[in-house]
């Protein structure tokens, strides 16, 4: 499968021993780097220091780490007050609770006031596993995407998450970053490009464009590799910037391939799938198949079982790609 050189992907990308690290670790590393680079950066935590990986920041910058306890609504609004005072606060919790519980505070105090609050939503997606549906956030992309002034980032691996944190600090205004609990393959490198508003084409392909975000980008790559053996040329696009979307890249891919599959570990309605349907519906309509949660909650299970059960893995992406290509042929 012809990988795009400019994407600077890991040479071990399809090796069995590819490193696996949770994206949340990238968040923790990014915070420390951001704290070193900019004294305004603060971290506010709601009783989830270890699992949101904010401990290293706490150790490095105890004066700039603030523990609030289980109080997500004030977490957002207190952070906004700190941002009004010139700081750059990151608020870290599980995505179910922030932005799940404090959406109105985020809307009013971060977005309407257009201040520098950065929201880190951990434990997103069904791959949270045994904790079950209450703790598996699936609606956060939809919730954040509709807010004016909000940036929405869904990085694909630990390295990209680290870059997303640093980019969030550079961006003036509210940013939402989503990440996951489980270890997932690290297939980008320090040199892989990352920017807010940019999507990356990972491999060339012309029959179907697979647009994915988060750790499932790796499943999309596995699917494309398999599709190649079936004679199907699939282009994989890593789309970490859900808002703003890289419209030029995505529309060009739709024009070239004539069919699109979206892949995400979230409700497809309102998520990346919703965003792509809106973009292409208005600009260049092509058939779309959306791999994601289909208007359902998750449940307990192992991460692998759940990804399989909810049809989010490579075999299901392959099926979606074949379906959408058939629909494309029907048009002519």
């Amino acid at each position, binding site marked *: 499968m012809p990988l795009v050189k400019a994407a600077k992907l890991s040479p071990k990308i399809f090796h069995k021993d590819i490193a696996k690290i949770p994206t949340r670790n990238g968040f923790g590393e990014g915070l420390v780097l951001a704290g070193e680079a900019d004294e305004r950066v603060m971290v506010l935590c709601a009783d989830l220091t270890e699992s949101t990986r904010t401990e290293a920041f706490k150790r490095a910058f105890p004066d700039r780490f*603030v523990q609030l306890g289980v*109080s997500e*609504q004030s977490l957002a609004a207190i952070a*906004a*007050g700190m941002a009004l005072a010139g700081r750059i606060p990151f608020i870290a919790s599980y995505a179910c609770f922030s932005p799940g519980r404090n959406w109105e505070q985020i809307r*009013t105090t971060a977005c309407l*006031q257009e201040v520098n609050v950065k929201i880190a939503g951990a434990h997103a997606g069904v791959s949270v596993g045994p904790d079950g549906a209450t703790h598996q956030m699936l609606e956060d992309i939809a919730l954040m995407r509709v807010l004016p002034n909000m940036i929405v980032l869904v990085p694909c691996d630990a390295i990209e998450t680290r870059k997303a944190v640093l980019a969030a600090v550079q961006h003036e205004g509210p940013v939402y970053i989503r990440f996951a609990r489980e270890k997932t393959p690290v297939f980008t490198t320090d040199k892989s490009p990352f920017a807010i508003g940019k999507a990356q084409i990972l491999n060339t392909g012309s029959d179907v464009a697979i647009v994915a975000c988060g750790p499932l980008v790796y499943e999309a790559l596995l699917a494309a590799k398999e599709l190649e053996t079936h004679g199907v040329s699939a282009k994989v696009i890593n789309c970490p910037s859900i808002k703003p979307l890289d419209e030029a890249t995505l529309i060009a891919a739709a024009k070239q391939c004539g069919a699109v599959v979206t892949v995400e570990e979230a409700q497809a309605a309102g998520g990346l799938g919703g965003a792509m349907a809106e973009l292409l519906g208005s600009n260049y309509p092509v058939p779309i198949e959306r791999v994601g949660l289909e208007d359902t909650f998750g449940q307990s299970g192992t991460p692998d079982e759940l990804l399989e059960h909810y049809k989010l893995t490579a075999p299901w992406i392959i099926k979606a790609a074949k379906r959408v290509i058939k629909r494309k042929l029907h048009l002519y």
Partner: protein
Amino acid sequence: MPHVRQTLAPLTDAKLRKLELQANAIRQDLLKMLTQAGSGHSAGPLGMADIFTALYFHVLNHNPRKPEWSERDRLFLSNGHIAPIRYTAMAHAGYFPKSELSTLRQLGSRLQGHPEYRLLPALENTSGPLGDGSPQAVGMAYVGMLEKAPWHVYCCMSDGELAAGITWEAALFAGKHKLHNLTWIIDRNNIQIDGYTEDIMPLEPLHDKFAAFGFTVLEIDGHNIREFVEACDRSKATWETPTVIIAHTIPGKGVSYMEFEPAWHGKPPQQGDELNSALKELRTLNGKIQSEME
């Protein structure tokens, strides 16, 4: 290290009378503004007229010509629906021309129905959704403590909004960090949009609740400017805890047909008899204050 504290300037009798007259003039402009807008809240803004006058003309360390002066005291508003009193007090203080008051709630106006920080930065925060202002004031005060800043943080709140859980989250935080540079001012007028606070969701014993959260609690007559100024002075002198001033006010204060009437919570007087009789009453009060001065 506590920061260097300044107490407020002494409030002379002459200054007090001046503030009372100022409050009366502000009430009159407030009513005209509300009538012209044709919608908005009357009772709360009238009830807070004395406190806002005292804040802008005596308590706050601020400069209307430099609204973003870095050392200004920060005045947050948590119950955004009383914005008209803040706008009127700000116009009188010189933040913008009084003529702009007539644009309240109009398309393109900086004076939105609920105040917006991005349009008028001296507002400090955008306010409307109840409960969101007090935690922002807390966040600001926390940074002020970290930076040993010379400014003080005030936040005006309503009593009805205290039913919002976020208020008590913020109170826990303020108590934990002993935010002594923070003063919450609660408009205890006992009414909210659906009726009397103690019928809707009882708040008493309010004094004890805040004391239990680690606040110094001061209860005052919210129409007695001297009591309010003294409470602010005590708050600035308190280095151990945040302060809450429970200001007992009369909703609709100054206009007898509005006083204590929940019906006037959310509507303005109409052009004609309603407005004229209210203004007449306030002008009469003006005469009384002036005669006391002589």
